[in-house]
């Protein structure tokens, strides 16, 4: 279970990206985070695994205070949270399997991994995850020779290497076209339904939220302005989240 309490983030330049955000995610949920661009979605997700240091507030993961964790404890917490990035964040010149194996770094000792020595178990796991995402035959090609959708699947395989309990996905489909968006989100749905992973996913388009999320929260200017079922976002709520001029659009 993940609990975020009174989370506030002020960037060094004074931007208040999150203001007193409180919510809770139950195990097995697929929680969508929605909001305009600049509303604080990325900041929120990155605060949860402390890629960004929160300014104040607390985050509890399975009862452990993440905000108070030491670097070593943080390493252990992070490996339970797989992160999927909008820009994939692959090392383009490395081959696919090396990229996937980096998802295992939280488990291996420094000395061992620096020599690029991953165990046979890790290699097999990497191949298994790639197979699951339909990329087994691409294991030894360079990452930049893949298409955008394939690169995001590598990103998911990398997150799976952590054997996570929670997936944090920051607009995982914003760089992809609509058809690929569905294919990627279906993988996340599968992980959520079959493997029982908790998913916290920020999304830009409301119809994707309707289709995949079990629950949604909405941010506006860093404040939590909605928490509830996706179906509960009616026209009034919509205008409150996206502003008066916004129009509902569907991407397929």
């Amino acid at each position, binding site marked *: 279970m993940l609990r975020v309490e009174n989370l506030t983030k002020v960037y060094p330049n004074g931007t208040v990206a999150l203001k007193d955000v409180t919510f809770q995610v139950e195990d097995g949920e697929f929680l969508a985070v929605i909001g305009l661009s600049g509303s604080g979605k990325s900041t929120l997700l990155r605060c949860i*695994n402390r*890629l960004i240091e929160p300014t104040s507030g607390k985050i509890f993961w399975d009862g452990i205070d993440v905000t108070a964790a030491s670097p070593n404890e*943080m*390493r*252990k917490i*992070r*490996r339970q*949270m*797989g*992160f999927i*990035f909008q*820009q*994939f*964040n*692959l*090392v*383009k*010149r*490395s081959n696919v*399997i*090396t990229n996937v194996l*980096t*998802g*295992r*770094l*939280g*488990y291996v000792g*420094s000395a061992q*991994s*620096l020599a*690029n020595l991953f165990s046979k178990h890790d290699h097999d796991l990497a191949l298994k995850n790639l197979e699951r995402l339909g990329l087994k*035959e*691409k*294991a*030894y*090609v*360079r990452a*930049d*020779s893949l298409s955008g959708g394939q690169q995001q699947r590598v*990103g998911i395989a*990398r*997150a799976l*290497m*952590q054997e996570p309990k929670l997936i*944090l996905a920051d607009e995982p489909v914003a760089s992809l076209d609509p058809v690929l968006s569905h294919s990627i989100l279906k993988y996340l749905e599968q992980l959520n339904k079959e493997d029982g992973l908790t998913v916290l996913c920020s999304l830009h388009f409301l119809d994707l939220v309707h289709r995949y999320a079990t629950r949604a929260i909405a941010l506006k200017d860093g404040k939590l302005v909605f928490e509830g079922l996706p179906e509960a976002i009616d026209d009034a709520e919509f205008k409150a989240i996206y502003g008066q001029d916004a129009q509902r659009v569907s991407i397929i």
Partner: protein
Amino acid sequence: MSAQTSNSRTTKNPLLAPLFSLIVPGAGQLYLGAREAGSAILVATVVLALLIQFTSEVLRIAVIETAFFKTSWLWFLLALFWLWNVFDAYRRARGLSASRVFGFAVPILIIYILAWQVTGVDFTRLVTRFDDVKYIFNALLHPDFFTRDTEQQSGWVTIQVPCSPTVPPPPPEYSGFPVRIDRACGTVGDPLTMTGEGFLPTTSGNVYWLEYDGTNEAQVRMNDAPVVITTDANGQFTSQFNIPSFAARDGLDPDNPVVQAVEARFVQEVGPPKPSENFHILIGSIAQEPAPAWMVNLGLVAPDATVPRIVPGGIWVTIALGLMATFISVAVAAPLSFLGARNIMARVRGGTVIYYVTRAIFNFVRSVDTLIWAIILVTWTGLGAFTGLLALSIHSIAAVAKLYSEEVEHIDEGPVEATTAAGGTTLQSVRFAVIPQIIPSFLAYSLLRWDINMRSATIVGFVSAAGIGFYIFEAIRKGGYQEYAAALWAIAIVVMIVDFVSSIWRERILHGERRAAATPQDLQAPPKPFYKTRRGILYTVIFIIVFIISWNLSEINLEKLLEPAPTLGSVIYDYITIDTSVEVWRAILRQILVTIFQALLATTLGAIVAIPFAFLAAKNITGRARGTAWIYYAARFVLNFLRSIEAFLYVAIFVFWVGVGAFAGMLALAVTTFGLIGKLFSEAVENIEEGPVEAVTATGANRLQTIAFAVLPQIVPPFISYSIYQWDINIRMATIIGFAGGGGIGLLFQNYVGQLQYHKAGAVILAIVVVVTIMDLASAKIRHRLV
């Protein structure tokens, strides 16, 4: 509306601005809110005033003297600039602008007048000394690489000098090949006909006048030129000349005549050309040595046999130094560069401080030229190739590390974030997210550095007394310009090859196609790591061999580092406790000015000459058409050849031509500048886009208009940008050109070191670092704005 716009103007009084500018230049502009123009004018005025004051006081430049006062006429130009500034403020206050051309032209004019005088430019010397310099050019075209065996044919006959009424001439004696003369006695100036036969047909020789005992001789000359005798098809010759004044050596006493001799001498080259002594020194030779014990023990050779051994010449030592310095600097700079990378250091506690300190050290070390480092290091490790290697490496480490650091700072942060999110440590992030990204650019910079180190290695021997630089130094001292020429050719060939290889490899690394997609069965298994492939093994073996050979040739001797001269400590202390006396700094300021101005003039001269060449050497202008392709290749070759030789090595030619001093150094710098900048310019011409040309032509513009509106705007900014960049490079080179007689700050440094006044030498280094750093920053800033 109109009220609003005029409102913003009426808040500032239009008469106040010119008044302010009259009192303090630039103040009016600042008052009007034109911050950049205002501060530029203020700074320009102050700098120019200081320059005029200093140069007229200390260097007596542009001084006019009357009975009542003594001043510099440049003040008049500065006053013009001042007036312009007042006018500009006035115009600006009315929302107009004054001519910017004038505002730029006057300061530039002042600068160039000063530069001209400070550098001691004297182009008439180039002309008046031209005849003497032909000798050097002849030597340059006839480098001493090969010789042939010679064979001499000669014959002489005696003659009595002078004729005597008392002593009849003795019967002539003959020796060697048969020669005759038509008189038995004579005095200086008497005409004489000499005949001979039996010599090789159709060859040329000379005539010599000998004392009878043969101790002294002189070539016979007529009309200021040696008398040349030429045999016909039968090997006979006839020649007429006058008895030379040399014949009067023993006195011209008719009562005491002496017997002297006339000799016809033909020296003929025979046999095939063979490597000259100079070739052996430069390129190498094969020596016979007693066989080593292990060969004898194995029964390979007889106990007293000799075996051949290759003795590499100076050029190989130079190549080895360039390679070793590159290996060392890459190996050391790669880890260091992370300390100088802001993004990595931000992740480490206290890292920002480390970052600033590291960058400052990099900047300091690379501002000081390799040769200066060599001079400093000689105190530690003595003369020899090893000291040259250390100097090359130190400078190279700092220069490469700075580039590497910038490359680390420019990586894509995404993968770093991803490894961190997966629970990776900072070290793991570096290993898996940073290193894979930086490898290609690191390799490219290393190759570029190899090229630069190769060039520096050709001159470092000047100080460390090893390698080709030392050899050149010796050749020039002995006046052996053919030997010098041979060294230049050898260097040019090696550097051109390195330049070519390095640029091809760089191109392949940075823009090469990704490896073709692997075949399906390859995809099932991980590819073999590179070092296990056949090519990988071959490269590794080659690398190891090259490394070992280079190691040996560079005379690496780490023990030397541990046993410095006992005075080292006090020398370092002296260097650090910098001299602050006014006289020293006045001398430094003076020489720094020479250095800056000489670099400025060299850049200007080189760039002006390079402009027409750039068009000749541009593929899209001359390279495509059949008829003109040879022009393209010839121009390219000239540029490549000239820039492959460091300006430092050209100084000798110009010292011979125009004498020791800043002018000679300036000309030497201009030659290399011409080569370097000509290449950059020609690339700018090659990059001209056809689109605008087409568009302007389509409007019905004629050719001249097309060039003015579509071509010039495309090439003028890069030309200016490259020229400023080159000025920056030239200042660095000009700091050492004094070692070779080219004037400037280098000479001062050498003098101080020679007098063991290290605290003064330390002051010179500080001044160099300051000037080079300022130029570096300024040039980067200006170029950034131009692009």
